[in-house]
């Protein structure tokens, strides 16, 4: 059970980063750390002891394979994570060019 708890701690570190950090890039970094821990969580769920990577070798068929379903889900979730990070980065660079700073508090009082 240790890997699961460590994985959840990584998720909470990311959540802590998003809540407390003031810097836009730091918030984006914490979000991608939360994302990384979610993928690790799915991979941990699909692991089977003595299992082999889910590639069928026509020569010797019968083997115990690792569960392919969580891997398919993580494959999709990784590219979704890339999409959200790209969108976030586009807004961050835009805000930086308009306000000249990465700090949320300064953006709030510059807004006026």
């Amino acid at each position, binding site marked *: 059970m240790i890997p699961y708890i460590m994985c959840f701690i990584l*998720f909470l570190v*990311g*959540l802590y980063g*998003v809540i407390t950090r003031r810097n*836009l890039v730091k*918030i984006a970094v914490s*979000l991608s750390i*939360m*994302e990384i821990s*979610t993928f690790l*969580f*799915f991979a941990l*769920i699909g692991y089977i002891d003595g299992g082999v990577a889910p590639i069928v070798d026509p020569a010797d068929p019968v083997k115990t394979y690792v569960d392919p*379903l*969580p891997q398919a*889900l993580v494959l*999709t*979730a990784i590219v*979704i994570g890339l*999409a*959200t990070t790209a*969108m*976030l980065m586009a*807004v*961050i660079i*835009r*805000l930086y060019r*308009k*306000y000249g700073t990465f700090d949320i508090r300064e*953006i709030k009082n510059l*807004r006026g």
Partner: protein
Amino acid sequence: MNPLLPFFIITPLVGAFLIMIIGRFIKEFNKYFTSLILLFLACISFYFLFNTGENIFVYKVGGWEPINKIPIGIYIVMDGFNAIVVCIINLVGFLSAFYSISYIKRYTAENYFYALFCLMIAGMNGVVISGDLFNIFVFLEISVISAYALVAFGVEKNELEASFRYQVLGGIASFLILFGIGFIYWKTKTLNIADIKEAFSTGYDRTYYLFVQILILSGFGLKAAIIPFHAWLPDAHSSAPSPISAMLSGVLIKAVGIYVIIRLFFNMFAISEGMAILITTLGTLSMVIGVFLAIGQWDIKRLLAYHSISQMGYVVLSVGIGMILISRGVRNEVTALAITGGIFHLINHAAFKGLLFLNAGAIEYTIGSRNLQEMGGLAKQMPATAATSFIASMSISGIPPFNGFFSKLIIIIAAIMAKFYLLALLAVIVSIITLASFLKFQRYAFFNKTDNKNERKIKEVPFPMVFSMVIMSILCILLSVLVFPQIREAVLSPAIDILMDPSKYSSIIIGH
């Protein structure tokens, strides 16, 4: 295996990509093409509304038949409750798209606007009709990412900041949902909603169940802007272009937030009393706090955004009362009344809130400012907008002939019959404050005499905007017809039966 079901997804997607390619060469193409697609979708959804009735359409994508009662592929499911929400999405979507034909002239890059609009519609349709948990997450991401981009469409400072906050909170919600799905898969090893209910029926550990429910509730609650998670809504809805904030407020928080919470907590989880009470208190809090936050607002769209939170509170409150009664094993007509009130108010809110945002857009289109103090005396120059916004304001604050009154009445009666007198009292008080707030809006915007109105040349908004506003106001009046029993039987009662008897949904789907 009704072959019409996949077209809810195919048509808007292919439409969006055709707009991207052809819209580059033929300028006028994308405007009318989007409205055409959405009209076609609205017709399909009405077709499904009127003949789902008691049966559930199950479409097995990819043709994978279940092996010894365990579904393998992804299921597209259309039942009574789905049909109603799909109708809301496509109808309000069509009216907003038609409205934005002339509204979007103010913005550059119209191609991107219409393509993202079609993708948002495709995402919402995908979320509502899918019967698979991870599939709901993927289509949720499509609709939410296009909503992020549309909120920041006119790239000004406050719009970019609103989009940033929306993306951060939306990102946290997505990862909470993904963690919840991982948790559910860890215990039940399956992703189909009906099959998860079967797997859960073989016993579960209580704390694990509570933890999963809290994860899923907070993830989708954040998308539905329920009280502890509503921080992003006022900025996002006030800085988006008006047809988009009409879609966001009227449809997105319902289809992607409230609908999924109702579907999962009625048809997937076995409702425990503690969770039902938590949901009801969240609904009451968002109802009360939303209204108090809205009183001090002078910007029209922020005022309307806060009212969205409080009206959503009504829906969550009445559905929560239904949940409490079901968790106590009480399945009589009081539960049915509570759930009917919730769903009826869901439909009404889509109509009048969408209309209010379109009115705010019309005012902004002519005057250019959203501040109530700078307006005044618009009734004479903009008769259509004034009339439609009067109808919408009266129906949101629950004045008898309009639809808002009947749904709030049902909710209050259900609360009283279920012996929650405090909740009924709060509902009445909030309704009165809403009335006060909208009278202020009407007086300042339309009937207030101001000195400097003569030198401004204000004329009525162009035809597409007036047309969709008038259609929406007719809808507001027609929806009050739903109270009569025989019409209610045809439209609402299939949805009520699905939600009342939780095991009916999974038994029919597993039986297929």
